[in-house]
């Protein structure tokens, strides 16, 4: 799901994405207390380290994304760790690109808000496995939503990318399930061990 530099013929695509992402990040940072700096930073490290974990799927392996999980615990600020995580991935691991940061963070960061909202519904359901079920939904919906956004961006940027976009979506379908399972289990764990973290997230 990480688009490399140099993919787009028309620079307006990535320039406007970078501007939009920068604007959103600017607003979030300007309204953030200094007290939240370590929280955003540690969550960025978490996002980065989790993406180093590879899980085997059939003959290949995929690395985790966990934007849904970041959304669940960070709420309103979820965009920031994903942005900084992608910057560090591009600079330290050469994963993704620099000019495509805007596109990558919009396609992965916006779905994190969807995951936050979805997992929030869990409160209204009392059954024991609710955190798993809603964690699953949040985790897989975040990836699915990200894929659909990416598909739209690619096709919007260049008609010739239709085939590429669909191939990307299909290739990532197993990840949709894996992220769901992992986010569900993590959600279950959080709810059981530290429900406080889930309550504090919006603030």
């Amino acid at each position, binding site marked *: 799901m990480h688009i490399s530099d140099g993919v787009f013929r028309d620079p307006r695509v990535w320039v406007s994405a970078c501007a939009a992402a920068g604007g959103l990040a600017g607003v979030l*940072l300007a309204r953030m207390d200094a007290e939240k700096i370590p929280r955003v930073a540690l969550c960025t490290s978490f996002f980065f380290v989790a993406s180093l974990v590879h899980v085997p799927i059939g003959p290949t392996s995929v690395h985790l994304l966990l934007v849904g999980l970041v959304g669940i615990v960070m709420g309103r600020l979820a965009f920031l760790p994903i942005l900084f995580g992608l910057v560090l991935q591009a600079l330290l691991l050469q994963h993704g690109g620099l000019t495509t940061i805007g596109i990558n963070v919009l396609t992965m960061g916006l779905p994190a808000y969807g995951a936050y909202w979805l997992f929030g519904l869990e409160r209204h359901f009392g059954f024991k496995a609710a955190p798993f079920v809603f964690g699953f939904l949040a985790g897989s919906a975040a990836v699915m939503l990200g894929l659909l956004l990416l598909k739209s961006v690619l096709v919007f940027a260049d008609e010739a990318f239709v085939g590429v976009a669909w*191939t990307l979506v299909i290739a990532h379908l197993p990840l949709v399930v894996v992220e769901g399972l992992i986010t569900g289990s993590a959600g279950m764990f959080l709810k059981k061990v530290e429900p406080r973290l889930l309550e504090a997230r919006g603030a």
Partner: protein
Amino acid sequence: MHLPEIDKYAHLDSPLHRWDGRVKVACIAALLLAVVLAPTYPLALAGLALAVAMVALSRIPATFIFLHVRWVLLFCLFLLVVLPLTGGGELLWRLGPAGVSRAGLSKAGLISLRALAAVLLIFPMMGTARFHVTLKALRRLRVPSVVVQILAFSYRYIFVLFDELHRMLSAARARGHGRARRLRMFRNVGSMLGMLLVRSLNRTTRVYQAMLSRGFRGEMKTLDDFHLRPTDLVKGVLVAGAAVLLFTAGALA
């Protein structure tokens, strides 16, 4: 799993290592932009040649570079296979119901050249000084202080969390979960990451307390050692000049 070590070769000596971090980051970033914007094959090739030359100048070993660009190579390979098969238009060869489209192949090739050139430029930019020095250079280039702070802290804690995760994974393997059924494995990985997340977020309170107790009042201050010498500017003019040339040639093409 392995750690990010982009600055593993920061201790070497080369014209790029000796270059003032502020000028270096700004000029190479400009070149990277020009490369990404290259609209034709000759210009993209020129960009790639410049990138390769700068990597060679930096003395960073080729094996290290190859290991680090594998994501981008994989991405290019993917485009080189899929774009020609789905590109449509005039076909070079027929392969049963599909065919290799000329436009698709040419587009995938151009993208790959630009992507490769751009990723190669990251090495002279980020790999020739320690990462924290580069962060200070970014601060001096007017990147907002809170952004640099977050990047610096995240970088520091990547190593801490990496060790924690590594310990958890080895412990899990020792308990024999390694060969358990797939679903169970995902559940374990999920709880483990949940645990890592809980620990990290609980750590944030203590880190902030440690900052406050040493007099933090919202603005982080650091010292740096940047001195501009004439050679820094000469290098800057050369690289920025190449960027401008590439860009202008692209705009005229």
